[in-house]
């Protein structure tokens, strides 16, 4: 869109401070200007009007007024095709570095409207995400191109509509609050894994919790902050008001620990880990993640655990 020359000049959109997790479009944050086609239309009206006046032709003047009134009515129509929309950033899915990254937003409308086009300003040469707005919630996925791993803010999102006759462009800017994650690409490779139990001395605040039964308790030890609440011996607590964790007799760990391999470069190692984590998640296995002494996650399964693991490897040393 040629309007972006105006829209995206720094002096202008630096002043746009719509950093909110929710934005209601109205008179304060909507801008409107005739499109290129609108200018052509306007000049055609002027051409017919000038010749109609000079050749004393009432009908030509009437037609020029009619075309002009269409032009001005479109001013309202285009503005109100966006006015009243509520934009909301929603929880983002985790994206991977080798794929296109998408940012999801939700747009609520009280009635059916025309098409809305959205794109992220910081990303050059991306296609607009375009959708017709229906009454109720509408979900958009904005293409942000390919990115390296990390946690990002989407920056300025630019949206416009030229409904219904493309004579005007009505646009807005919005900086959603919700950040999104880009995990390393999933690449098959060697990963250091271990299934041995990690001693509580090595990792005082980590505890294995799975495959235990209340009947075979080996003993108790002092509870360390960060351990699962399910391991606490509540009976002991009721007696002496001190927290103890239970240790089990026939403990056979069925989980693995995924660790960082030291011989290969960090980024590659992370990509391999990412693939491994994803595989484990698909098989619904229990796994833990250990990058170093400060970055680790106790074994678990499920989507939430996967997301936490991916968050750690995305932000590791960045």
């Amino acid at each position, binding site marked *: 869109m040629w309007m972006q020359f105006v829209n995206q000049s720094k002096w202008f959109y630096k002043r746009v401070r719509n950093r909110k997790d929710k934005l209601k479009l109205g008179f304060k944050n909507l801008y409107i200007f005739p499109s290129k*086609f609108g200018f*052509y*239309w306007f000049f*055609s009206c002027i*051409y*017919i009007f*000038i*010749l*109609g*006046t*000079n*050749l*004393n*032709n*009432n*009908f*030509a*003047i*009437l*037609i*020029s*007024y*009619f*075309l*002009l*009134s*269409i032009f*001005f*009515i479109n001013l*309202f*129509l285009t*503005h*109100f095709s966006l*006015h*009243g929309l509520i934009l909301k950033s929603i929880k983002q899915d985790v994206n991977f570095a080798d794929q296109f990254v998408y940012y999801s937003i939700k747009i609520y409308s*009280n*009635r*059916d409207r*025309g*098409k809305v086009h959205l794109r992220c300003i910081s990303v050059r040469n991306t296609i607009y995400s375009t959708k017709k707005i229906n*009454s109720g919630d509408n979900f958009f996925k904005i293409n942000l191109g390919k990115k390296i791993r990390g946690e990002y803010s989407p920056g300025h999102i630019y949206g416009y509509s*030229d*409904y*219904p*006759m*493309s004579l005007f462009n009505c646009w807005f800017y919005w900086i959603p609050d919700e950040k999104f994650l880009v995990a390393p690409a999933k690449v098959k490779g060697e990963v250091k894994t271990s299934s041995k139990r990690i001693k509580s001395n090595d990792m005082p605040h980590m505890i294995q919790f799975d495959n235990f039964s209340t009947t075979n308790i080996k003993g108790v030890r002092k509870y360390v902050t960060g351990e699962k609440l399910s391991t606490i011996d509540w009976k002991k607590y009721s007696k002496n008001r001190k927290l103890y964790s239970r240790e089990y007799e026939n403990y056979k760990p069925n989980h693995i620990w995924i660790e960082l391999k030291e011989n290969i470069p960090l980024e590659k190692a992370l990509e391999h880990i990412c693939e491994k984590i994803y595989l484990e998640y698909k098989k619904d296995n229990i796994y833990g993640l250990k990058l170093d002494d400060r970055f680790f996650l106790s074994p678990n399964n499920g989507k939430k655990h996967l997301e936490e693991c991916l968050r750690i490897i995305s932000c590791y040393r960045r």
Partner: protein
Amino acid sequence: MKKHKFYILISYLLIFIYGLIADKILVFCGINIIILLILSFSKFKFTQSLINAITFFSVSLWLLLFIHNINTSSVAWFSSLINLIWLLTSLKILEIFNNFKSKNIIIFLILSIGSLVLITESLLSNIICITSLFLAILSLLNLNENSVRISGEQFLIILLCIPITITSFFFIPKLNPWLSLDNQNIAKSGLSENLNPGDISSLVMSESLFARVYFNGNIPKHSERYWRVIVLDKFDGITWSKSDFAILNKKINQENHKNIISEKWITEPSEIIQRPWSGEGYPAEDNFISVNGMLNNINNKKFREEYYIYSGYEQPNWRLIKPSVNETYLNKNRNQRLNKIGEELAQKYSDPEIILKETLVWFSKANLTYTLDPGKMNPRNPYDDFLFNKKAGFCEHFAGSFSAMMRAANIPSRVVLGYQGGEEIIDSNKQSYLLIDNKYAHAWSEVWLPNKGWIRVDPTALVAPQRIESTSLVESKTFKLFSKNIFLNFNKSWRNIESKWQNNFLNIDNSFRNRLIPRFFRNNKYTKSIFILFVLSLIFIISAFYYFIRNISSDLIYSWLIKFYINKLKILKIKIDSQDTFNSISERVKNEYLQVNDDVDKLKISYNCIKFSCNRISFISNIKLFFYTLYLVNKILKEISKIKGIKD
């Protein structure tokens, strides 16, 4: 084909076929239409390179024509511009079966429609233009990118523009023309300023409108309907042409109470500066009579024009002005056989009246026939060729040869070009008038008789009396009686509608617009402007407000109302906590004021209906519910304040 492309194609074909029929469009645009029509039935696709080649060829051709015609008239650039627009539109439309940018073609279409409006003024062309325009707008609304789904909404968008258009048209005063545009291309009368039988092979009958004439009394008989326009008094043996003329009268005082309007003329634009008239009475305005009986004006008729001919004012009669040298001169080297007959008659009879009669007898016995397609005459002796070889011709041949023979017999004579006849039509005010179109174009002779002055002689009437008695020869040739009647009846009613359209709409001027403005604002230009601005902005505000109301959610208006209600309750000292729901507040009100129990219940139900209903409430139901709630809130608050007042 996609919907919007279909609309574009229909719109294009409508205006271009009409333009071709009306002879306003270049031939190669026409060829384009034919190609397009053929293509629409075949699967051939124009490649972009082929289109580029055609564009290059056509634009070069246009450029050549432009260079060739630029010096021919002062408005050549204007007609060239219009033709260029049409040409470009035609070229662009070739891409219709490819993936092309529809918006560009719509702009070209709008410009083409605008151009057609400028150069044709008939009701039919107006209808065609407005239809094409609506189709172009419809195509824009149906574009793939942005299609307006609901046809009702499409209709609404167009409908909303109409009040603004009409208000602008009737209230904004028309500006005075500031460009010196002569629309010579606009309309052509069936008359030219020269008469050369060697040049014309056939007479093309155009049915385009020339003028309308209203009479004070009865409409003249058919045989008396001669409307003179151009007098050709110079004759070199081949060509009859117009000489420089002297002015006969001075401008008359229109306010003189003796003046009675005898003829009212409404004429269409044309290239010539002469205006049609009957030859009786005196003109006013900018018109003046020349000594040879032409009604002249300084300018050609750029626009549709209205003027009057008055009777009851004494002025010298042009019929009595003696002939000039031009009107007696004859080149004896040309048309020698014709000259010989004239000379023989002059030798035989001395009385000019007898010579005139004998010439007419000779003409009636010469076995001449009337035809519209006589072929070209011999360029050296055209009238000899007509009278003695071909023996067939149309009015100009008859009038030219008759006048030449009169000069050979030493009687001053000249040819008059004008219109003969006219169709009698009754307008909406039950006033009858004559409608003259270009098919009534005619030529006749005028001869000078010493006792009578200039008298009219129509030699065509001797040979083809039906040409004078009926309307024209074309109709009797091409239509059978039955179809002719249907055609004439349709034509009559169509002309009636067209006259209404022209009188009531196209002739609207600033004085009419002024009358629409209330008297209080009319007299001062500032108050007038303020009034116009006020009316226009009012309509704009109403449209904007309509969209605003339509757009904002009904919940929002409703929550404003409920907020207002709760604030009022607070003022009336009803205890309200921040954690209270609407239902709990209602219960409290009910407990405290038993008299409003029913209304509070109703309010509760309507609130719950709007707030929690799963079904979508229509726009009208929303408005109804809003006003119902407003009524309940008002009633409850009034009751409570009344009870409160009694308690206090």
